[in-house]
C-alpha cells in the first residue's frame, strides 16, 4: 500500500478530487446548492487541462441526466452531480438510466426538497429516488464520500451489475465542512478504476437503445431482470469494497456496527449524524447500558439478511430517519428495517425517530431522549412508534 497524502478538503472538494483522478469521459451537470462547488472545482480541472473530460454545461438537471444517458449509451464513462430539486428534475431520466442498465455515477449531495424552500440537508431527495432502480450508497464523512466516488464505477461497470450508482453524502455538514482526507496517489486510482470498455458501442456498431415495447410484450420481463441485477449487485459491491481496502487500508462493509454482540437497544442511522449517535452509544456503554449502533452504508440494494442477523438478538430498535414518508407506517429506513425483520419473523419494539429535516440539528440531549425511549421499549413499557424528536414547543416533563 502506497503512502497517502492527507489534505484538508471539504466533502465537495474531496469528491471533485476523486473525479479528477477518475478522469471520466463525459460529465454533464447544472449548478445547485450544495452540490455546486463540486462542479466549480471540477470545471477548473477541465479548464486547466488536468482531465480529458468532455464537460457539457447543460441548461437543467433534466438535460444533465439526459446527456449522460446519451454518452453512457454510446459507451463513454459518464458522471453527473446534483442535489434536491435537481435530483427531482432528473426523476424520469433516473428510471431510464437504470432501465437501460447504464453504468452512470451520480453524486447526490443530500438536501431537503421544497416547500418551504430550504437548502440544508435531509435525505428526502434521495428517498424520492429510492425506487428508481439505482444502487444507493450513503456516506458519513468526506473520506467516505471520496472513497465511494472512486469505487462507484467499479461497481456500476461490473459485468454482473451494469446499473447506475448514486453516491450520497450530507449537504453542508459534509459538503462544505473541511475535514482531513487521505488522498490516494493518482496512478493508484487510475489503476484501480481501470479502462472502461462498454459492452456496446454506438460508434462501432449501429445500436438501438430504448426500443419501444409496443403492446406490453416484454416490459414485465425487463423489470424482473432489472430487479435481479440490483439484488445480485450486493456481493459485487462488497467485492469492490474489499479490493479498495487493498489499495487504501480502509475496509468498508454494507453495514457497520459497534457494540452489537450483546446490544439490547440498537440505534440505526445513516449519514453524517452517525457521529452524534455513536457518541451517545459510547456514553451509554460507559454507564453500563447495553446500547449498540448499526450504520447503513449500502442502502440499495438493501442488505436485508445482514440487517436481520445484526438485529435479531436486540430487545428494542431505534431507527433514525432523515426523511419522512407521509401517511405511511414508518419513514423509509425504518420501513426497510421492519420489513426485513418481519420477513424473518422477528417482531420486536421499533421506535422511528424523525430527525434533521431541512438541516435541523440533532442535539445530543435528543439522542439521549431517544435512548430513554429505547430502554423503556426494551423493558416492555409503552413507547411511541414514531417520534419527531426535535419539534419545538413540546412540553418538558
Amino acid at each position, binding site marked *: 500500500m502506497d503512502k497517502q497524502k492527507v489534505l484538508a478538503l471539504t466533502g465537495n472538494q474531496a469528491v471533485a478530487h476523486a473525479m479528477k483522478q477518475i478522469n471520466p469521459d463525459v460529465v454533464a451537470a447544472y449548478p445547485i446548492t450544495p452540490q455546486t462547488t463540486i462542479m466549480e472545482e471540477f470545471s477548473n480541472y477541465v479548464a486547466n487541462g488536468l482531465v480529458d473530460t468532455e464537460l457539457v454545461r447543460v441548461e437543467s438537471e433534466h438535460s444533465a441526466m439526459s446527456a449522460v444517458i446519451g454518452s453512457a449509451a454510446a459507451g463513454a464513462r459518464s458522471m453527473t452531480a446534483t442535489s434536491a430539486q435537481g435530483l427531482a428534475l432528473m426523476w424520469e431520466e433516473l428510471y431510464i438510466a437504470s432501465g437501460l442498465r*447504464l453504468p452512470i455515477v451520480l453524486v447526490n449531495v443530500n438536501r431537503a426538497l421544497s416547500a418551504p424552500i430550504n437548502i440544508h440537508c435531509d435525505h428526502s431527495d434521495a428517498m424520492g429516488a429510492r425506487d428508481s432502480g439505482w444502487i444507493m450508497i450513503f456516506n458519513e464523512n468526506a473520506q467516505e464520500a471520496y472513497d465511494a466516488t472512486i469505487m462507484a464505477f467499479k461497481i456500476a461497470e461490473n459485468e454482473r451489475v451494469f446499473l447506475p450508482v448514486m453516491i450520497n453524502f450530507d449537504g453542508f455538514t459534509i459538503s462544505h465542512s473541511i475535514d482531513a482526507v487521505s488522498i490516494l496517489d493518482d496512478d493508484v486510482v487510475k489503476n484501480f478504476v481501470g479502462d472502461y470498455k462498454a459492452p456496446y458501442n454506438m460508434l462501432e456498431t*449501429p445500436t438501438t*437503445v430504448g426500443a419501444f415495447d409496443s403492446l406490453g410484450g*416484454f416490459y414485465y420481463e425487463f423489470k424482473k431482470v432489472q430487479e435481479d441485477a440490483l439484488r445480485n449487485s450486493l456481493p459485487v459491491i462488497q467485492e469492490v469494497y474489499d479490493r479498495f481496502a487493498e489499495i487504501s487500508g480502509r475496509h468498508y462493509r454494507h453495514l457497520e456496527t459497534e457494540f452489537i454482540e450483546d446490544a439490547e437497544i440498537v440505534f440505526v442511522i445513516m449519514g453524517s449524524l452517525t457521529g452524534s449517535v455513536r457518541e451517545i452509544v459510547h456514553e451509554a456503554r460507559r454507564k453500563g447500558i447495553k446500547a449498540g449502533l448499526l450504520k447503513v452504508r449500502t442502502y440499495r440494494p438493501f442488505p436485508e439478511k445482514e440487517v436481520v442477523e445484526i438485529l435479531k438478538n436486540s430487545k428494542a430498535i431505534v431507527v433514525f430517519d432523515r426523511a419522512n414518508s407521509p401517511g405511511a407506517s414508518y419513514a423509509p429506513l425504518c420501513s426497510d428495517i421492519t420489513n426485513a425483520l418481519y420477513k424473518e419473523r422477528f417482531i420486536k419494539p421499533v421506535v422511528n425517530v424523525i430527525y434533521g429535516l431541512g438541516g435541523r440539528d440533532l442535539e445530543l440531549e435528543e439522542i439521549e431522549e431517544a435512548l430513554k425511549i429505547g430502554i423503556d421499549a426494551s423493558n416492555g413499557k409503552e413507547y411511541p412508534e414514531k417520534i419527531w424528536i426535535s419539534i419545538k414547543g413540546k412540553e418538558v416533563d
Partner: protein
Amino acid sequence: MKKIDITRIQEFSPEEHPIGGHIQDAGNSELYKTGSWKTFMPEIDFSKCIQCLYCFIYCPDSSILVEEGKVVGVDYDHCKGCGICAAECPKDAIEMKEAIEEE
C-alpha cells in the same frame, strides 16, 4: 453483448433479453411485424392502377411492394392501415377494406 432473434422477442424469458434492451442487429425492424395493428387494409385494383407510384412515395411504412419499377402489392406484415395510399391515389384504385383477423 449477444445478438437476438427479434422475431421471438414476445416469447423471451427474462434471461433471453439483451442487457438494457440494447439491440445490436442493425436493420432488424423488418423482422418485427407490426401489421396486426390495422383495422382497415388497402386493396389495390390493378385494372384502375396507372403505375404512378404515388402510393409507394407516400406510404410512411414502406409497405407498398414494388418490383422492377411497378407496384405489385402491399406488405400486410408492416402496413398499419393508415389509408394515406388510398387518399393519395389519383385513380381511386386503392380501397380500404375492413381487416379480418388472420387465424
